[in-house]
């Protein structure tokens, strides 16, 4: 806790003021740094996967796992408000999953990830996917300690998803624009969505994907810095 800048001494029953700077978000940042150090010490890469509800985060993670699991020891942390549906889906790929149900929260935070990491054999892992709660607002504000951030949106959400949620894309390393097989039916141009991302965050790599026909899955893997060999 921050030390008070000024304390006015008072007798009992008197009113006194304390001037200080207690940063409410510092604790999450501190825990995120701690998670990051812990992952690095074990040589584990962690990818925070964020995106709207139903954009295809789980499907994309599944597709990536099936291509990477022969080369890397992978585990998944599944964040949801409730149910184990996503971790059951992921478990079908044969990798260990830890389900984190936030109950009332709209995002994962560094403390929940710390607890999830406690339950994982970190020295026996190379790569952890952290699937955040489906939401394009809150997760941007809570770093978890991952070394890469992947944001997943889809053409079915319409043409303005990027422009309407600038904060989410500012911190992204890779953006997947998913369900491009439906682009024509949706009358949404994926290239325009990519252009919006490039304008907001020129450093982010953008990949067009379809989990149904496999388009772009390799591309996302490569953009995240991995190869399928």
């Amino acid at each position, binding site marked *: *806790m921050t030390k008070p800048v000024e*304390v006015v001494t*008072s*007798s*009992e*029953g*008197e*009113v*006194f*003021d*304390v*001037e*200080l*700077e*207690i*940063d*409410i*978000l510092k*604790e999450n940042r501190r825990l995120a740094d701690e998670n990051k150090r812990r992952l690095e010490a074990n040589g584990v890469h962690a990818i925070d996967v964020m995106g709207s509800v139903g954009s295809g985060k789980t499907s994309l993670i599944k597709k990536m796992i099936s291509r990477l699991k022969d080369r890397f020891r992978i585990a998944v942390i599944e964040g949801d408000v409730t149910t184990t549906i996503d971790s059951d889906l992921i478990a079908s790929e044969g990798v260990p999953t830890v389900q984190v149900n936030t109950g*009332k*929260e*709209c*995002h994962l*935070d560094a403390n929940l990830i710390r607890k999830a990491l406690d339950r994982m054999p970190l020295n026996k892992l190379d790569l952890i996917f952290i699937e955040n709660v489906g*939401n394009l*607002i*809150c997760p*941007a*504000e*809570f770093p978890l300690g991952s070394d890469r951030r992947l944001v997943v949106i889809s053409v079915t959400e319409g043409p303005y998803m*990027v*422009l309407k949620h*600038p*904060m989410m894309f*500012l911190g992204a390393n890779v953006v997947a624009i998913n369900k491009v097989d439906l682009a024509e039916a949706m009358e949404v141009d994926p290239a325009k969505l990519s252009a*919006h991302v490039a*304008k*907001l*965050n*020129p450093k982010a790599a953008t990949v067009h994907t379809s989990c149904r026909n496999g388009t772009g899955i390799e591309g996302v893997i490569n953009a995240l810095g991995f190869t399928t060999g």
Partner: protein
Amino acid sequence: MHEFTIASSIVEALLDLAREQGSSKVLKVHLRIGKLRALSIEQVKFSYDILAKGTALEGSSLTVEESAGSVRCPSCSYHGEFNPDDLSFHFGVPPLLCPQCGNSLSIDGGDECVITKVRMLASTAKEGTPERELVG
């Protein structure tokens, strides 16, 4: 959307502070919240009042000062205030682009959430250490 979580952290930090300072009653709390932090002040206050019930914070007043957002452009070194409350800002679609050169901006202020000042009552010795327990 996560005002309840933030209000919980604020309440926790204040209860720790009151304990440190030996006070059993907090009267007034000042916060500074940046305009670029996605927090609704009304909802923070609403959650705070609920969470304060039954604690040393019950009945305390919460004053929130909003700090301006500020941005910097890495391309043309534009530096200026950035105000999501200003309607004209929302017409400059997409936001977070430099008004001077149109490239992407970085945020360099106005995304904080900080407790800045707390007024509390110095506790009276009678509370917590009743004399009769010391006798005998």
